[in-house]
C-alpha cells in the first residue's frame, strides 16, 4: 500500500506560486485554490489535512477565510497555517500571528515549508 500522502489545500491568489509549490511539494497531495471566495467549498470537497492560507487576497482576505473554515463543523479541526508576504524582518522571528495561528513568511524554501507542514499536521 503506497504511503498516505497528506492532503494540503493551498489558498493563494498567486498562481505562479501555487503551481511551483505543487511541483516542489510533490510529497503531498496538493490542491490549489486561487479564488479565496471558493476556498470554503473547495475545502469541503477536498477534505484537506492542512490548509495553507495567504493573507492578502482580493475581495476576501485570509483572516475571513480562516473564520469561515473554523465556523464549519466539518473543517473546524483542520490546522491552518498562514502564508504571508507582509511581515517585517522583526516579525518573521515570531512564532505566531494574529489569532494565534502559526505562519510562514514568504518567500520560503520548499524545505522550510515542508518542515512547517510536518509540524502542524495533526498526525
Amino acid at each position, binding site marked *: 500500500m503506497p504511503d498516505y500522502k497528506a492532503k494540503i489545500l493551498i489558498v493563494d491568489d498567486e498562481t505562479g*506560486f501555487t503551481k511551483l509549490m505543487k511541483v516542489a511539494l*510533490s510529497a503531498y497531495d496538493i490542491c490549489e485554490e486561487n479564488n479565496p471566495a471558493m476556498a470554503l467549498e473547495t475545502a469541503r470537497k477536498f477534505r484537506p489535512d492542512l490548509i495553507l492560507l495567504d493573507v*492578502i*487576497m482580493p475581495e476576501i482576505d485570509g483572516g475571513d477565510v480562516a473564520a469561515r473554515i473554523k465556523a464549519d463543523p466539518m473543517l473546524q479541526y483542520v490546522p491552518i497555517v498562514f502564508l504571508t508576504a*507582509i*511581515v517585517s524582518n522583526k516579525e518573521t522571528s515570531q512564532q505566531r500571528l494574529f489569532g494565534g495561528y502559526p505562519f510562514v513568511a514568504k518567500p*520560503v524554501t520548499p524545505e522550510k515549508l515542508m518542515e512547517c507542514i510536518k509540524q502542524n499536521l495533526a498526525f
Partner: protein
Amino acid sequence: MWDEKDMEHFFELSLDMLCIADCDGYFKRVNPAWERTLGYPKQELVGRPCIDFIHPDDRETTMREAASLARGLDTISLENRYRCQDGSYKWLSWNAKSLFPQQLIYAAARDITEQKRTEDALRKSEERYKELLASITDYIYTVHFQNETVAFTSHGPGCLAVTGYNPEDYTKDPDLWYRMVHPDDRPAVVANAAKMAAGEAPPPIEHRIFHRDGAIRWVRNQRVLRYNPQGELTGYDGLVSDITLRKEGEEQVQQVNMRLRHALARLTRSDEERIYAQMRLIEAEKLQTVGRLASGVAHEVKNPLAVLQMGLGCLAKPSDTDTPQLSLILKEMGDAVNRANAVVGDLLDFAFPTELDLRETEIEPLIRKSLLLVRHELTAAKVKVATAFGNLPSCSLDENKIEQVLINLFTNACHAMPKGGLLAVTTRQRSATAQEAGTDEGDRSGACLRAGEQVVVIEIADTGSGISEKQIPRIFDPFFTTKPTGMGSGLGLTVTKTIIDLHGGLIDIRNRPEGGAVVTIVLKCERKDARL
C-alpha cells in the same frame, strides 16, 4: 360810601379793560380802555359775543373757564389773546366774577402783551445761554507767583461749564481745585505740578474731576509757564479742556479693541487648532499611505520572490525535474522577476514622476493607437469597441505618458468585462466649469484649470459590473486593487492619476447609471502661454 357817580368815574378812567357781559357771553357794557387797548369803539363790541374776538387757540380754554362761572364758581382768572382791530393779538389777563340773580358777568382784563413778550424773550435767552454753556468745554486759569510761591489764582468764566463751579467759588476756596480731582488721579496731578517747582515745563496731563453735579469728567490740563527777564517763574496760564467725550470714545474703542483681540485670539486658536488637526490628519494619512505603500511593495515584491524561492527549491531537486516541469518552473520564475521589476518601476514612477516631454499632440490618433495596442486583449475578452470623436484642438501632452494612461484604462475596462461587453471611448471639447477649476488637490504641476478655458474631455466607459461605492474613494490609492495578486500591481490607476495631475488635468471614475463604470479625463487644450 361808594355811589354810582364814583363807580362811573372809575369805570371810565380805568387803565384796565372792564366789561360786563351776560351769561350767554355777549358784551353788555365796555369801558374806554377797550378802545384804547384793542382799537374797537364801544359800538363794535357791545352786543357782540366775546368769543368772536378771542384767538382760536384760546377759545376752548376760555369757554371752559366761562362754563365754570356759569356752574356757579365764583371767580375765574385766565389768560387769553384778543384780536385787535388791526388784526394783531394782545395777551389779556382776566379776573371775572358772576352775579347770579342778575345773570351777569363782571370782568376785568389787563394787557399783558409786553409782559408775555418779555417772558418769552427771557425764556429764549435762557435757552440760548444754556446751550452756550453746554458748548463751553475749555477755560483758562491763571496762576500768579510772588517770590516763587503761588500768590493767587484766577479762573476764567468757562470754569462754570467745565467744572460746575464759578470763578468766585475758586477764589473763596483755594483747595477746591485739588478736592475736585479724582482721588486716584491726585498723585499724578501732584507729581505733574511738582515739575514746575523743579523748573521744568510740565507735560499736559489728563485726569478726572468731580463736576459739581457729581458726575466724573475727564479734563486735560495744559500749562504755559511765564518767566521774567531774570528767568524766574512769574506765573503760568493753564488751559483746562473737557475731554470726557474723547475719553469715553477712547474707552469704547479700547473695549472694542479688546473684544476684537479676544475674538482674534479665539479665531487664531481655533485656526491653529484646525491647522494642527489638519496636519495630524495629513500625517496620519501619510503614515497610512506609507504603511500602505510599504505593505504594497512588500506584497508585490515578496510574492514574486516567493515564486523564485519555490522555483529554486524545485530546481535544486535533482530527480523530479523533467522537461515540461522545467520549462514551467523557469517560465514562472521569469514572469515573477518581470512582475517584481515592473512594480518597482511603477513605484518609482509614482514617487518620482519624471519631467513631462510635452508636445502639441492630437488626441484622436493617440487614442486610436492605444486601442490598437490593446486590441489583442480586447478580442480575447470579446469586448467590442465604439468610438465617437468630437472636433478637437491639439493639446500639450507627453504622448508616451498619455498612451500609458490610455492603455491602463482600456486594460482595466477589459478586465471589468471578463465575459465580454462594450468599451466606448468618446471625446469632445468644452469649457471648464468653475467646479473643475476649483479642484487642485494633489496638483503637482501648479498649472490648474481656469474656469471657462477650453478643455478636451475623454470618456472611457465599460459595461462591466462597476465598482462598489465603498471602493471608489480609494480607487487611486497606491496598491489599492480589486484584482487578484499578479494581475496588476495596484499602481496602475495611481500612476495614471499622477500623469494626469502633472498635465494639470482632472480624472474622475464613477459608476454609470446604466451599469459599468466610466472614466472621465479632462485635459487642457493647447495654451499659447503654457510653460509647463
